[in-house]
């Protein structure tokens, strides 16, 4: 079927009774405590108003009363699905402020951990997206694989979700001896499962019918709203900070930026956003393999950790490619051991703002799919 929008009408000019439906904060598919005020005409969505703030934990205010190191666990709790990726821009911002150069081995471990966490994040994103479309089994297959990745994290850091592993200038501890073999096994397993998921879910006719041509986000709208990550790349814009302004050691690796091409529908539809995540997992696997091959065996991961983290006066903005998009931290230092101000630019928050724009005129069932394709984490939206 090739319907673009279910109804393509300017709803502001039609007088009819609308139903106001309150979706969430307790609803199976709002991915957390998001509340959506949905205006329905029959089953057609005429307007969506997201209400956020149910998980607001004053991250930015707390950060003003903490040491620079003590902020790291709070950063973990922003996007709790990809904590490693959250820690990276924060510690790199502070390092940039202090002018610290971290050892080679630390850089490699950071990249491997961040990419592993990216895979884990995309697995959840694809799994819950399938769940939103009604497919339950791929969800469990992907969660099983994510569990293997969490085992590596647990062995290396002691935590499954919230690690506090990247420290300013180094790492909390070195990786364990069989780390490399474990990671390479994971890469194999991820590739195997992704093949299965493509057959079971991604190229399933029903799944394509549900997601192709739904929630089309044109590239210009995506850029105007400041979208980033797979949401932006799904619309065909090849913008990835790992390539655009390589940080850490990403310039040493050979990988591609997958973009949405409208393979089964229109460029920028839900299917495209999802396939970008699937392909990014493969690219992350490639990066991990190269990093494992290049990683130096010896080296002290804590040699560059300063005794006192007391950056000089100044301010810095550092951004990284989070699995969900561009995560940036703006840190102002007034020369004390506590930051004067830490501001997080959360990709989920920015990406969520595009939801009303792309869901008007679709059916209510599509709204859930569109929300799933944006892949938000409420911990990061509310902070």
């Amino acid at each position: 079927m090739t319907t673009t929008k279910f109804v393509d009408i300017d709803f502001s000019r039609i007088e009819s009774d609308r139903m106001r439906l309150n979706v969430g904060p307790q609803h199976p598919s709002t991915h957390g405590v998001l509340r959506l005020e949905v205006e329905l005409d029959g089953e057609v969505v005429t307007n969506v108003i997201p209400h956020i703030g149910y998980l607001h934990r004053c991250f930015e205010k707390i950060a003003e009363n903490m040491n620079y190191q003590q902020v790291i666990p709070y950063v973990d709790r922003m996007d709790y699905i990809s904590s490693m990726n959250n820690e990276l821009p924060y510690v790199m911002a502070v390092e940039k402020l202090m002018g610290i150069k971290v050892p080679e081995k630390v850089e490699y471990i950071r990249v491997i951990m961040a990419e592993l966490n990216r895979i884990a994040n995309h697995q959840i994103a694809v799994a819950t997206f399938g769940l939103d479309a009604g497919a339950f089994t791929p969800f469990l297959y992907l969660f099983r694989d994510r569990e293997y990745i969490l085992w590596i994290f647990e062995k290396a850091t002691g935590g499954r979700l919230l690690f506090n592993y990247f420290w300013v200038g180094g790492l909390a501890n070195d990786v364990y001896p069989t780390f490399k073999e474990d990671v390479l096994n994971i890469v194999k397993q991820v590739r195997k499962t992704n093949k299965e998921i493509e057959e079971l879910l991604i190229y399933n006719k029903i799944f394509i019918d549900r997601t192709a041509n739904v929630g089309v986000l044109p590239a210009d709208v995506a850029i105007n709203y400041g979208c980033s990550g797979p949401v932006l790349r799904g619309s065909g814009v090849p913008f990835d900070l790992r390539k655009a302004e390589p940080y850490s050691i990403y310039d040493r690796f050979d990988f591609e930026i997958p973009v949405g091409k409208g393979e089964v529908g229109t460029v920028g539809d839900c299917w495209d956003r999802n396939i970008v995540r699937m392909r990014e997992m493969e690219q992350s696997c490639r990066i991990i393999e190269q990093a494992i091959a290049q990683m130096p065996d010896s080296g002290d991961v804590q040699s560059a950790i300063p005794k006192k983290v007391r950056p000089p006066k100044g301010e810095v903005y550092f951004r990284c490619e989070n699995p969900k998009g561009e995560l940036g931290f703006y840190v102002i230092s007034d020369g004390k051991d506590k930051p004067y101000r830490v501001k997080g630019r959360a990709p989920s928050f920015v990406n969520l703002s595009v939801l009303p724009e792309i869901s008007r005129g679709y059916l209510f069932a599509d709204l859930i799919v569109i929300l799933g394709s944006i892949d938000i984490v409420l911990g990061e939206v509310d902070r």
Partner: protein
Amino acid sequence: METFNVFEKLLGQNILSALISVLLPLVFLIIYALIAILGELKISAWIQERLGPMRTGPYGILQPLAEVIKLIQKEDIVPAGANRLLFNLAPYVIFAGSFAGFAVIPFTAAFVPAEINIGLFYVFAVGAFAVIGIVMGGWASNNKYSLLGAMRSASQMISYEIPGALVILSAAVLANSLDMQKITALQDGGFWNWFLFGGPGGWSKIWILPFTLLLSLIYMITSLAETNRTPFDIPEGESELVAGYHTEYSGMKFAMFFFAEYSNMFIVAAILTVVFLGGWTSPFGSFMSGYWWGIFWFILKAMFIVFIQIWLRWTLPRVRVDQLMYLGWKILLPFALVCFVVISLYRIIY
């Protein structure tokens, strides 16, 4: 094998034989529902590489019983602003609709609860009854999600009932009867006599073989929609409507909905078995055939269809409400119509 009601023959046509004829399907339904729930739990677990329930009894086989006990203990909540009468009535209307279908299900040559000569028509008519219960429950709940689910169910029903009815009509033309016992008896003598493979007759049936295969596929698809199961569980689509029309139900009333769903699954499986898979007849001629073996074959075939329903549920995503209607009206209906015309022509010629 001749067909008759064994209880009427033994006890005469009195209240006792009638009571047994009614109670026996009910007892069967309860036992079947427990087995099917366990099957659903275990099969879904195996598909998803889990173990499923393991704590209640050996390999968790007592899990369905535990769940029934849990549901009985739960508080019976009627939401504020609900229409109490309709809210309380709806689960029983749905269950009555699906249980009434058991009246004409021929379990074996010697037993069918009510032997009426328009059995297929009857079972379709009472099957449509369930949607009244769904709309009642959805409307009376005073919940927008329930209402949306009920509306979806009502619109869904029309789009799948019509192709489904055409399939049954084709089968009736082929069998020259609406009596489920007669249709079954016609297919006696081996699986090549099943209506799935063109029904009894000489080599001329090769002309309609592809059409009967197609018809059984169409009926399989519409039966999935009738039972509100994935990929057509649109009225209760969990990720969208929480639980659809039974969002507000708890305790035993919810159990009645659950029960009705499983009973419905068996009804549609039984119709498919009777019409296309030869009902209680043995697939291998006179091998293992007889009144007792009839029960075995019938339940085996029906449970296989139930297994397919469970299998599909845990494999496929859900279609959207307009896509189901597209499927019903624009794909299944024309195909069913073509099959109907071809089979009618075949009946006229041969």
